[in-house]
C-alpha cells in the first residue's frame, strides 16, 4: 500500500496486443492496492471482454517498465512507462 497521492502510469500496447485490444497507449491512474506489474495486469484483465482473454494468467504476455523487461513482482512508480506485448519474434 502506498500513500494516497495519485499514481499515473503510461501504458503502451504493441504488435498483436495493440491490434486485438484496439489501443496503442493510454495514461491510467492506478489504485493504491496496485503495487506491482502483476497487480496492474490483473487490473487491466478485470476490464473484461478481450482484456480478460488476452491478459488471462495463462497467456504469454511480456511486460517492460521503462524499456526493460521485468517479472510480475516488479514494483510500479508514478510516471513509469509500462509496455505490454506478445513474445518477441524479430531477428
Amino acid at each position, binding site marked *: 500500500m502506498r500513500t494516497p497521492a495519485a499514481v499515473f502510469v503510461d501504458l503502451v500496447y*504493441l*504488435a498483436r496486443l495493440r491490434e486485438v485490444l484496439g489501443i496503442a497507449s493510454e495514461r491510467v491512474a492506478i489504485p493504491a492496492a496496485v503495487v506491482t506489474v502483476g497487480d496492474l495486469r490483473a487490473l487491466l484483465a478485470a476490464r473484461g471482454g478481450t482484456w480478460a482473454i488476452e491478459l488471462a494468467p495463462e497467456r504469454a504476455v511480456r511486460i517492460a517498465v521503462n524499456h*526493460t*523487461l521485468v517479472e510480475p513482482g516488479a514494483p510500479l512508480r508514478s510516471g513509469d512507462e509500462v509496455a505490454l*506485448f506478445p513474445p518477441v519474434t*524479430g*531477428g
Partner: protein
Amino acid sequence: MTVRVQAADFDLTQAVAELHGGDARVGAIVTFVGTVRDLDDAASVVSMTLEHYPGMTEKSLAAIEAEARARWELRDVLIVHRVGELRPLDRIVLVAVTSAHRGEAFAACEFIMDFLKTRAPFWKKEETPAGSRWVDARTTDDDAAERWKTR
C-alpha cells in the same frame, strides 16, 4: 559498439569495413544475416512487416551486446535490425562480431542472435495468400537462449 534500427537495407562489405576498420588485432570476423523466407510453417509469405518498440529496442540490444562483451574478448560488435515492410530474399538483421580468435567471434555472434530473438522487442507480421498473421514465438528460440545459461 554500434546498434542501428533502420528501414534501409545494409551492405555487408561496408558494415564489415566499418567494424574491422584499421583494427589489425582482429583475426576473426563472424557475421550473421537473417533473411526473409518465402515459406514459413508451410505458408507462402508474400511480405512481412517488422514492428519494434523504439527506445526499448536500442536499450535491449545494447544490453545484449554488453553481456556478450562481458563473456568473451571481443574487438567490436555491430548490430543492424531493419523495420518496416520486407519481402522474401530481403535482409532482416545483421550481427557482426570481430575478435582476435574465431572461437570467441562465433560464440558471441550466436549468443547475440539467440538473445535478440528472445529479448529484443521486434515483431513480425506476415502477409500470406490466406491473409495476414502475427508470427508466433518459437519455443526453439527460448531453448537456444536457455542453453547459454549453462555454458
